[in-house]
């Protein structure tokens, strides 16, 4: 739903302002992000249309590669039917989660001034690679050893129906000149593992577990 709303907004604005759209801009960024015993490195490239009479709105699509690495991270039951009720969630603890995702992404930005831009972007669809990891399944006072792989397919849907590894950023950019900017962002990164068996059995069988990481990030953006 988020994606649908975003795309509708996107195409509506494009359609409504098509007479005014005469320029585009491309941004590529390298970003490092860090949080509590976890972090990520991402590389993205966006093609944006500059909209509005002042050409301050920048909206478009692109792609992003995200490599996430963590140490001793908890992953909670991912399916919406479980994730929406904390009483129904179990968790797995992974010693060294590491996933690599490539996703199509959308971006909405606003150029406050020639020097400063603000915006938001979010992954929408893609796939994830990564090796099998050992961990511990935790169900209240019970626990047992388990293992799993990163969930292969990523898709942005409504609420907890999201699947796989999806990155998003609220960012601010400061442009040193027309081509180069520093980017400061709050990164919200979902990563997901699928266990080898449906290790959770109640209240329903489940093999998908998600980690939601809030990370502070710093990057360099080049305008093409």
């Amino acid at each position, binding site marked *: 739903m988020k994606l649908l709303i975003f795309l509708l907004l996107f195409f509506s604005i494009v359609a409504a302002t098509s007479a005014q759209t005469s320029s585009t801009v491309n941004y590529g960024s390298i970003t490092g992000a860090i949080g*509590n015993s976890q972090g990520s490195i991402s590389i993205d490239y966006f093609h944006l249309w500059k909209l509005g009479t002042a050409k301050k709105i920048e909206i478009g699509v692109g792609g992003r590669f995200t490599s996430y690495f963590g140490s001793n991270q908890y992953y909670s039951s991912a399916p919406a039917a479980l994730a929406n009720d904390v009483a129904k969630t179990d968790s797995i*603890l992974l010693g060294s989660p590491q996933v690599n995702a490539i996703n199509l992404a959308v971006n909405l930005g606003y150029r406050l001034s020639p020097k400063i831009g603000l915006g938001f972007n979010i992954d929408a669809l893609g796939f994830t690679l990564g090796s099998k990891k050992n961990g511990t399944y935790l169900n209240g006072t019970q626990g*047992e050893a388990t293992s799993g792989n990163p969930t292969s397919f990523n898709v942005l849907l409504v609420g907890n129906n999201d699947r796989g590894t999806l990155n998003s950023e609220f960012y601010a950019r400061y442009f040193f000149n027309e081509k180069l900017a520093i980017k400061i962002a709050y990164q919200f990164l979902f990563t997901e593992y699928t266990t080898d068996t449906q290790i959770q059995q109640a209240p329903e069988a489940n093999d998908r577990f998600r980690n939601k990481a809030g990370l502070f990030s*710093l990057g360099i953006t080049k305008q093409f």
Partner: protein
Amino acid sequence: MKKIIFGLLAVLVLACGAEDATPTAPVNDTFDPTKATLLRQGNLTGSNNYKVSGVAQLYNENGKLVLLLDDFSSSNGPDLRVYLSTTSGAASFVNLGKLKSTTGKQSYEIPAGTNLTEFKFVLIWCQQFSSLFGKSETN
């Protein structure tokens, strides 16, 4: 600009929180073993270069199962838990809670229905880092 970048990096580094260590003040729980039936017991030993000592005793106190760690001492670490396990690792376990202290006499209630013949190992386990500090096989 160098100052700005340095400041941002400092903020990022400080955003990484430190792990909580286990309390070290000695505890002396009021559990009275003379009013309970001893079911199993074993001596605790350290693992992975950690020092753990004491006696692990499993009691039935009027139908309630209790683990007593007596004359207990352990190396300190983050997120230390007391597990009952089917093996000397944490392949399948019951989590009795966070370790109250690295020293002293301490008791832990065992969930009703736990099969003590199956879950016969007592582990001092660092959950956050999946590391065994100490263990006892009870008999």
